[in-house]
């Protein structure tokens, strides 16, 4: 059973009296534990699509189902709860909270969204810190670590609630090549370890090659789908 099903999904933006179609009726399916990339030039609609999958926005038309939930029917409060339970996020500019330490940045989704007991939180956060290789830096603040390390923390934060899906928006855009590959490797490793679906957008052709399924978007339309190694056929 698919984790994500998009059926003729459209998204229009209103700019004054002009309606701009960011997505022009796209359809696809993504299976659980996939490692998927959406590629395309600027303005192709990949970010819009990630926002829709992440329940940060609603489609104008069509049907988008994520983890058996029709995202169009969720109100603001339900969307927040849905994101807290099912989706993790990784951003190109990391979006770590500057006032929290590395440990606390990973811990707070558990604390507020899941209300997990302290002992369990500590265990889970330390396990993830270990997994992303940041245990030594756990008491540092975001401004005391490098960009690559920040993104490692962001990966750990995205995974801490054990979501079904992690959305990564240009996760390597602010990193040098070596670090970018390390982050993608880490994401793959996490996928293998936690069976979490990773979807990331990128315009870096070398990074795109690391994805197992690549969807190419152009001008709001899905142009191509490539699967590597026969891992996914969705």
């Amino acid at each position, binding site marked *: 059973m698919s984790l994500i099903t998009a059926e003729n999904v459209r998204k229009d933006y209103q700019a004054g009296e002009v309606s701009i179609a960011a997505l022009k009726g796209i359809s696809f399916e993504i299976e659980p534990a996939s490692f998927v990339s959406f590629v395309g030039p*600027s303005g192709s609609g*990949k*970010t819009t699509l*990630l*926002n829709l999958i*992440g329940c*940060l*926005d609603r489609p104008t038309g069509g049907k988008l189902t994520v983890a058996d939930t029709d995202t169009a029917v969720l109100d*603001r*409060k339900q*969307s*927040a*709860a*849905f*994101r*807290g*339970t099912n989706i993790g*996020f990784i*951003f*190109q*500019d990391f*979006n770590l*909270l*500057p*006032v*929290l*330490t590395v440990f*606390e940045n990973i*811990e*707070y*989704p558990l*604390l*507020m*969204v899941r209300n997990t007991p302290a002992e369990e939180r500590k265990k889970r956060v330390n396990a993830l810190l270990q997994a992303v290789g940041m245990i030594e830096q756990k008491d540092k603040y975001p401004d005391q670590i490098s960009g690559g390390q920040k993104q490692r923390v962001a990966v750990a*934060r995205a995974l801490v*609630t054990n979501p079904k899906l992690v*959305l990564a*928006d*240009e996760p390597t*855009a602010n990193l040098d090549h070596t670090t970018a590959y390390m982050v993608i490797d880490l994401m793959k490793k996490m996928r293998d370890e936690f069976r979490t679906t990773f979807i990331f*957008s990128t*315009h870096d052709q070398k990074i795109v090659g690391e994805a197992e399924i690549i969807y190419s978007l152009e001008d709001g339309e899905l142009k191509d789908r490539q699967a590597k190694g026969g891992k996914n056929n969705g």
Partner: protein
Amino acid sequence: MMKSYFTSFVRNNKIKVALLLLSLSLYFSLIAVSVMLDRSIPDIAAVPLKSIGVQTIVQKTGKIPEKMVGLIFPHSNAPISEGERVALTGLPFVEGHDSGLYFWAFDKKAFAAVLGVDHGSRIVADILKNNMLQGGFDLSGIGVLVTADFAKKNDLSSGSTLDILGKEYVVRGILKPNMSGNIIPADVYMNILEASTSARRSTEMHKLYALGDGRISNVVLLRTDPAWTGDKEKAIKAINKELLVFSERTFTKEIQDQLKLISASGRIMFLVLGTALLVAFCLLIMFNLKTREKEISVLRMLGWKLADLKRQFIGETLVLLAVSLVAGNLLALAGLGFLRTRTISMELPWDISAKPHFLPQENSIERIITAQIPIHIDWLSLVQLSAAFLGIFLAINYALFFRLRNIKPQEMQGR
């Protein structure tokens, strides 16, 4: 509420948080001190009259002797009739009373303030008995008591004779100085019947008033029931509107003027300061939300609901306010402790002062009463004040959270 998030915020905004705590606690402590002072005014105002053990002195507006018309203003030396005296002492709040005849005697040698008192009274006579320096308490016949200052000035001792308005009196005892705390203080004390006879010998008194026979009094001292809640002054004035009432109310305004915090200008200052603080608080909340906008949008994206955010920010405000209130209460207690060590000066009205107003030099000394400020800490008021303070600032905080709705969850911003 996520405590670690809050403590991290405080750690990273030490100066901003410290300034907020300081201004809130200082403002609270100023309000608390002024409320306590305000509550203490009746006690402070009762201090001058406490020295003679009464709460109210009643006198009556008098007329000006012919020779002095144009030189002085009316004085409260008019006789209070026996009917008025009986009516006064029969008022429902009166628990004890005394009366006297107070006059000034001038001759070529000296000026004397004389008070005629009832030999067996339980108020003035008791004060005199308790303040004997030399000789004994004896106001029978032509016996008088004089204060130590007056005796020194006029070279008098027990057994000496003293001429008052053409009659010779015998000094039976010397009294301590300033024993009534400058309230109706006299140089010479004599029997009220003898004082009435002396007053009748004055041609001027006859010209001004119909004196009649028997005892004359122009000062009535009333010991009143503190629990009586009615308007005592109004009840007294109902007997005769020319009666003058000196009570704790007389001193209240003067005390308020001296205790600037609770004066009219003090209230305005509080209003201005309070408004400035509220505006600053509102701006700070707005600024706080603005500077944390990115954080909030990330938190919302990660699944925090508006209710979670409100709980977090209200929790933070609650902690900051609680710390401010604890500090403010401690500061207030320290301030009140300091005030307890201070004294307040109160100027007595001319009418109950020792010397006539045309002897300004002596009056300027004797009309001032200093007293330690009797501050009582009203714990219930402090609790109520703290709750009100907390309520107001929390309500403002809550009202400003409409802005949270405008901060949308962080969206992907890919290129």
